[in-house]
């Protein structure tokens, strides 16, 4: 691998961590101009930077604003790189349906999880907020999702998470489609009780999602 390519990959990653949107765009353009493999730039440059940002978030070094600014930088780079990407790399991605459950409109937490999942190579279908339980299941069936990820900030709407799990069971999809839950009032024992999986922040959600699809593969 050429030194230039290697150093560009490292700089791309660093600039994502440093939230330097302009610099990322410039680097991505140089990378493309040199005809290097675009997929690697995404995987080992941008995504790697985002993964480091996620780690800093987990270590309490970074907080929501930094994480969002890192993702701004990453998406800016992605916009430059994506048109040059050959199509075939996209096919075998694991799929996640994500949304805020019916009755709640607070979606900042959900958006963070979505960003982190996307940068970790998941294909994420975002249904937005105030989403009826049935819609999650319908969409998951339609796109053959591996995971449904549910979020809420409000105690009063937690029951709708349970409802999603119930529908999956009724339709015999519970074994195939895993359910992840998170948000202010959610605890591990609640997740356990309703038969879902819990993570307490966006970074851990990625680890959980990865381990869930890994498990599914083993089965």
């Amino acid at each position, binding site marked *: 691998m050429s030194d230039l390519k290697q150093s560009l990959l490292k700089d791309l990653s660093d600039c994502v961590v440093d939230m330097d949107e302009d610099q990322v765009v410039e680097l991505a353009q140089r990378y493309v101009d040199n005809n290097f493999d675009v997929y690697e730039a995404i995987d080992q440059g941008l995504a790697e930077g985002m993964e480091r940002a996620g780690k800093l978030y987990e*270590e*309490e*070094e*970074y*907080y*929501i*604003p*930094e994480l*969002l600014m890192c993702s701004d930088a990453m998406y800016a780079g992605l916009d430059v790189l994506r048109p040059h990407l050959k199509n075939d790399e996209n096919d075998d991605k694991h799929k996640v349906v994500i949304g805020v459950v*019916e*009755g*709640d*409109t*607070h*979606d*900042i937490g959900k*958006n963070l999880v979505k960003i982190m999942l996307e940068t970790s190579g998941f294909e994420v279908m975002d249904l937005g*907020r*105030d989403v009826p339980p049935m819609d999650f299941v319908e969409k998951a069936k339609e796109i053959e999702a591996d995971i449904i990820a549910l979020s809420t*900030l*409000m*105690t*009063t*709407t*937690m*029951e709708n998470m349970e409802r999603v799990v119930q529908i999956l069971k009724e339709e015999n999809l519970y074994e195939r489609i895993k359910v992840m839950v998170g948000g*202010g*009032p959610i*605890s*591990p*024992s*609640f997740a356990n009780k309703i038969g879902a999986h819990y993570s307490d922040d966006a970074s851990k959600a990625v680890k959980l999602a990865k381990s869930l699809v890994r498990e599914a593969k083993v089965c």
Partner: protein
Amino acid sequence: MYQLTVYGQEEKYLFAVTERNHLLDILQSQGMMVESPCGGKGICGKCKVQIIQGLVNALTAEELKYLTDEEIDQGIRLSCLVIPLGDLTVKLLDKKEVKHKILTDGYMPELEINPVISKKVYDLTKPTLENNLSYQDLLEAFLDAPILSGDPSLLRSLPEILKEEQVTAIYAGNELIGLEPGDTCAEMYGIAVDIGTTTVVLSLVDLSEGREIASETAINPQKEYGLDVLSRIDFVRRKENGLKVLQSAVIDCLNQLMAELCRKNNVLPERVYEITIAANATMMHLLLGVDTASIGKAPFATVFSKHQNFAADALGLNLSPFARLYCLPGVSSYIGADIVAGVVVSQLTETHKNILFIDMGTNGEIVLSKAGQLSSCSCAAGPALEGMNISCGMRASEGAIEGVKINDNEINLKVIGEADQVGVCGSGILEAISEISRVGMIGKTGRLKKKAELQSDEKLQGLAQFLIEEDGKRKVIIDSNSKTIAITQGDIRQVQLAKGAILSGFYALLDLMEITMEDLDEVIIAGQFGKHLSVDSLVGTGIIPGELRDKIRYIGNSSKTGALMCLLSGEVREEMERIAKDIRYYELSTMEGYERLFTRCLNFN
């Protein structure tokens, strides 16, 4: 079936239990008071009990988070996560909080005293053989008004009345609501109430003089079933009878406080003819026994928002049998009667100024007056500013650190009461973080500097001793006398979330009304809680932008003041009812670009 033995502070209870459920649920359905601010979700760590004897499920992962090793050794568990597996003996650890500081004073604009309730005394003519009318007919002719027969108690009182030479008629507006034997004009009282999610405040008012005699406060007893509005709504949904339980709790509390107020001030409860109540929408629904489910989820509809007028008797309030109940008008699920009261007390409509009004609490309610034009929003600040969701957080009671100052490498504390400090309350957390930010231990992003960074900085060297690094996480020790009390990075994040929510609410409303922070003439902080947050802390943490420092004014519990004004003036009621219709409400969470705004507002200055 198994036997449950519960030791309280001084007493012991025995129950035969058949339900298989979490211990907290069992205790609550047996009527035991266990504090569970999060409503039994295993996320607040406050419902601790000690298992003395018997078999229960194994320690859960969450409990490990909230219990110290020492507590685990003593058999202490979180009752919401414990499932009894047979006969069980437990001890309650919750010492009833006694010495709460609750603020009742507040600013009240001048108003013309013109209560809705009035009295008039008449000399009686008695029936004679020639004029043999019934007592009812006689009085009706006399008063020139019908004596309503909807309630036989009025008829029952007539013989007593006719024994006297005089009769006193009691009116609500023009309507005759009751009669009393003799001349009772000198005694005419009313009660003004604020039912807050956390505290209940009552004022006894002399209606003839237009004077507040005294007030009493208590912790809202519903708090045992959930600290915030949402956990109470959830309680109503989950528990059979939940609505009844919460309604009775608050009505009992009102009756108790009213009895106490009357006794202490030598007022007969029968001489109290009206009670006016301000509260947020959920508290108002619960008081009237109306289901709250719709308030708890989008689109957050209330069952009612308008003012209400009932016989106080209908709720079982122990006052005069004729007493009326007036509930102040609200706007929506978030902007309740408490906020409308605040708007009137702050005179937001009678001005050509631009004024920002905020009632700080788990939800921060904000009203902006642009030269009298009113818009409002609500922001999910979370409970951090009330000392909850904070590692060493507690409510403002005995032993709470309420003030923190960092001077010359020393940390000075202000503690409530004489007890040893056991935690930090909301104002303490806010001031601690404001100070930590001021001295530069955190930067703009809210990240605590590493020990090495502090040590290598000449100005911060002396403070490095307070910073502890543990498992890669940092915290600032503010007290280690009787117990280690620290502000963790996580605590700072919680306050940042609260700050982000409130500040973004300000900006969003200003934006909608097309004015800027600089255009504001005044910032009004309402609520018993907001009063404890100093200007320095509010500005220091950036909840209120620095340029507004000199424009901040505190008005105390404006909800109760509003109820008081309604008691004293029929015109104020009409004004409130009119204003309630004029306040526009904006939902922040679905607003375009709100996420970015919120995120920007998380940063410190």
